């Protein structure tokens, strides 16, 4: 069996649960009484434990097991959630995260689990001590010492500490040939096993079993604290078992099939509600009805996009060919093909969409930790978590956004005393807001910190030798603020201190621009900074403007085009050898694409010059081309080495006539 397949499923799910765990812990820190969150917290730890144990990751299983115990006590109200408790839980979640990372990288982790478990235990003792003093039973009724002792033991049931460590078992069962209803027997055995522990997975799935589909062996992964012999005895007692093997799971043992849902099914819940009294047993995860969703390896999604890309290229090829053939049928067929391909493309793109939430959920924790470390008071507000973006873009956004957030907390937000002195409100605010406009998504990160002064940024850049003082004079505010994105600017420690910004903005830029995005910075000294990332919805298949220069066709992402114009040669002005044209009441410079690519200048002196208006490094320019060819859907393939080192180009696409052309990376043209 291919282990790696299960491992990646495990990694994805474990991280999902850990992400949720972090979020919920933070929510509980604010509202420790939220019962729903406490329950969820318990479930996350519980799921991780089950998954880890069945994969044979014993450290992870043990730690999550202890955390689950702790959370169970919150659930039952035996312990209260204090800031110290949330610290421990976050530390535990971090350790689990490191263990997950170690699993991914096939190495052993040096996380000190024993220490965290000790902390959990220590907290338990200390908490139950507190509750025994302030507990329900009045100490007045009994002699002080004795009462305390009793409660102490009551608060700490022996089962917690002496319970044998939960282990995963791989159980293979063959139902005897003469069983009149083998799958029913299998379901009964499964039901019995659920009483012994947690059934993590079954092959065939429970749904298949219920559908009567049992051929040959039944494989069950069980997580239980029962002894192996006991499990064997119970299964044999179920009758009609012709062969049975119960083995504890170790590393490299067949992995469970995580596709069977681990969440507790509704049915089980209803049962315990209707059941007598209150069952204190945790919800038993079992296999519910077949899910409406499946997990798909993202490689497969990439493959779909590639296939559709090829389809689009082929389709435009057919269109090209059909131009010479006067056939209505052919045209109708092609038009139909257009619609089908577009439909398919939309659906596949939809599948690839991920909500911003998957990215944003990490931020509250990051802001909290950073703020704590710096001794600052910050609240983070998130908006637009449901805005969706292509997963490749979401993937590329994680680190850039963290850079920006880190800058905001480290350098933007003032210390509480400074804020008070400046008459500003506490806590400081950071807002991350995603919004969508047509096929573009805006992500805005704003803070009400000390902001940046464009003039001082210019000074710093001059001192660093990044720009000349002449260049500085010609810069508008926006361009000055974008200086922070120049590599080399950010490394200046002194600069980051005076500017309130700096670290890693060049990294942000180089992450955002290749995917067709752009950065905009606005800031007001004393009032705060707002950084806006403008991003395309998808990357692989985009609308492009085709243009021609020196007999070569190039594509420009439509998202980067502000306007196309045909400028009357007579209206072009010149200032200091620079050609300028009027655009919406401003004079913008004209730059020739031929010149940029060091191609021979055009010889024609046509009355109208085709111009593409775009924004480069915060500056609006007019790009002079030979001809505006038209707009087309293009399937972009990334450039391989060494072509990817060429500035100004970011990919290739194939036209209908089979010709391969370059996609211009407008932001890096000059």
């Amino acid at each position, binding site marked *: 069996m291919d282990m790696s397949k299960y491992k990646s499923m495990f990694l994805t799910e474990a991280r999902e649960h850990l992400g949720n765990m972090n979020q919920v812990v933070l929510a509980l820190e604010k509202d420790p009484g939220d019962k729903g969150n406490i329950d969820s917290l318990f479930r996350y730890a519980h799921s991780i434990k089950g998954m880890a144990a069945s994969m044979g990751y014993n450290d992870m299983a043990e730690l999550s097991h202890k955390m689950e115990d702790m959370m169970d006590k919150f659930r039952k109200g035996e312990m209260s959630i204090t800031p110290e408790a949330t610290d421990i839980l976050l530390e535990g979640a971090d350790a689990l995260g490191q263990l997950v990372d170690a699993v991914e990288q096939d190495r052993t982790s040096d996380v000190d689990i024993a220490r965290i478990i000790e902390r959990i235990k220590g907290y338990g003792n200390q908490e139950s001590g507190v509750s025994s003093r302030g507990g329900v039973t009045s100490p007045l009724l009994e002699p002080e010492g004795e009462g305390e002792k009793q409660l102490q033991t009551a608060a700490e049931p022996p089962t917690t500490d002496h319970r044998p460590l939960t282990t995963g078992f791989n159980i293979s069962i063959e139902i005897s040939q003469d069983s*009149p*209803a083998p799958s029913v027997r299998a379901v009964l055995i499964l039901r019995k096993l659920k009483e012994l522990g947690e059934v993590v997975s079954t092959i065939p799935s429970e749904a298949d079993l219920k559908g009567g589909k049992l051929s040959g062996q039944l494989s069950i992964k069980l997580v239980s604290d029962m002894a192996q012999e006991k499990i064997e005895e119970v299964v044999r007692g179920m009758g009609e078992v012709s062969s049975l093997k119960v083995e504890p799971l170790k590393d490299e043992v067949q992995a469970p099939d995580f596709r069977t849902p681990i969440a507790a099914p509704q049915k089980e819940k209803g049962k315990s509600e209707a059941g007598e009294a209150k069952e204190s047993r945790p919800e038993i995860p079992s296999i519910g009805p077949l899910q409406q969703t499946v997990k798909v390896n993202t490689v497969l999604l990439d493959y779909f996009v590639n296939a559709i890309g090829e389809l689009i290229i082929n389709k435009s090829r057919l269109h090209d060919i059909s131009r010479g053939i006067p056939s209505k049928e052919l045209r109708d067929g092609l038009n139909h093909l257009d619609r089908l391909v577009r439909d398919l493309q939309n659906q596949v793109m939809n599948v690839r969409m991920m909500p911003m939430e998957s990215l944003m959920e990490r931020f509250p924790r990051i802001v909290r930790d950073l703020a704590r470390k710096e001794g600052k008071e910050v609240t983070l507000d998130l908006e637009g978590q449901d805005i969706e973006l292509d997963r490749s873009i979401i993937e590329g956004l994680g680190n850039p956004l963290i850079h920006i957030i880190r800058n905001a907390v480290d350098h933007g937000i003032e210390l509480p005393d400074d804020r008070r002195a400046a008459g500003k409100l506490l806590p400081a605010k950071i807002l991350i807001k995603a919004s969508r406009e047509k096929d573009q998504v805006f992500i805005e990160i704003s803070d009400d910190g000390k902001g940046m002064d464009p003039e001082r940024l210019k000074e710093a850049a001059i001192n660093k030798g990044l720009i000349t003082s002449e260049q500085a004079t010609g810069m508008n505010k926006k361009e000055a603020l974008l200086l922070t994105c120049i590599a080399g600017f950010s490394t200046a420690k002194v600069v980051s201190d005076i500017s309130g910004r700096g670290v890693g903005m060049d990294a942000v830029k180089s992450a955002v621009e290749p995917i067709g995005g752009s950065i905009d910075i606005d800031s007001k000294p004393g009032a705060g900074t707002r950084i806006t990332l403008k991003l395309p919805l998808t990357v692989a298949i985009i609308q492009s403007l085709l243009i021609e220069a020196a007999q070569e066709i190039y594509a420009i992402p439509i998202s980067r085009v502000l306007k196309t114009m045909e400028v009357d040669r007579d209206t072009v002005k010149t200032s200091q050898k620079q050609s300028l044209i009027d655009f919406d009441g401003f004079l913008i410079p004209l730059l020739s694409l031929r010149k940029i690519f060091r191609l021979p200048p055009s010889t024609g002196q046509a009355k109208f010059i085709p111009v593409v208006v775009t924004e480069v490094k915060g500056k609006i320019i007019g790009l002079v081309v030979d001809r505006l060819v038209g707009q087309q859907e293009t399937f972009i393939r990334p450039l391989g080495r060494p072509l990817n080192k060429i500035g100004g180009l970011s990919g290739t696409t194939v036209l209908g006539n089979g010709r391969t052309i370059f996609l211009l990376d407008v932001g890096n043209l000059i």
Partner: protein
Amino acid sequence: MSYKVLVVDDAAFMRNMIKDVFGSMPGFTVIGEASNGVEAIEKYKELRPDLVTMDIVMPLKSGIEAAREIINADREARIIMCSALGQESLVMEAIDAGAKDFIVKPFKAEKIQEVVSRVLGVKA
């Protein structure tokens, strides 16, 4: 103390046979019989047996529906389904509804004993 058993089957012959099996088992008393699903439910409420053997195909109300209703009213109900060969999916439905186990006709006395002791959690 002996276990009280309710035997449900529309065939008198089957009821008698099952009664005989329980008669031969120490510690079991058949306290009632029913010949259809509706009757089975009434008898269950009235007699509160420790164990029910339930035929599946019966007039008025099937054994599956009867089992479901009984279990809905009493989650602790211990019902053993009695089916004919080839009724696997029906048995599955009943098990899904909460029946504890099943036996398939034609059954041997030992088979009934085995299933009964398993369901009651006692040694056969």
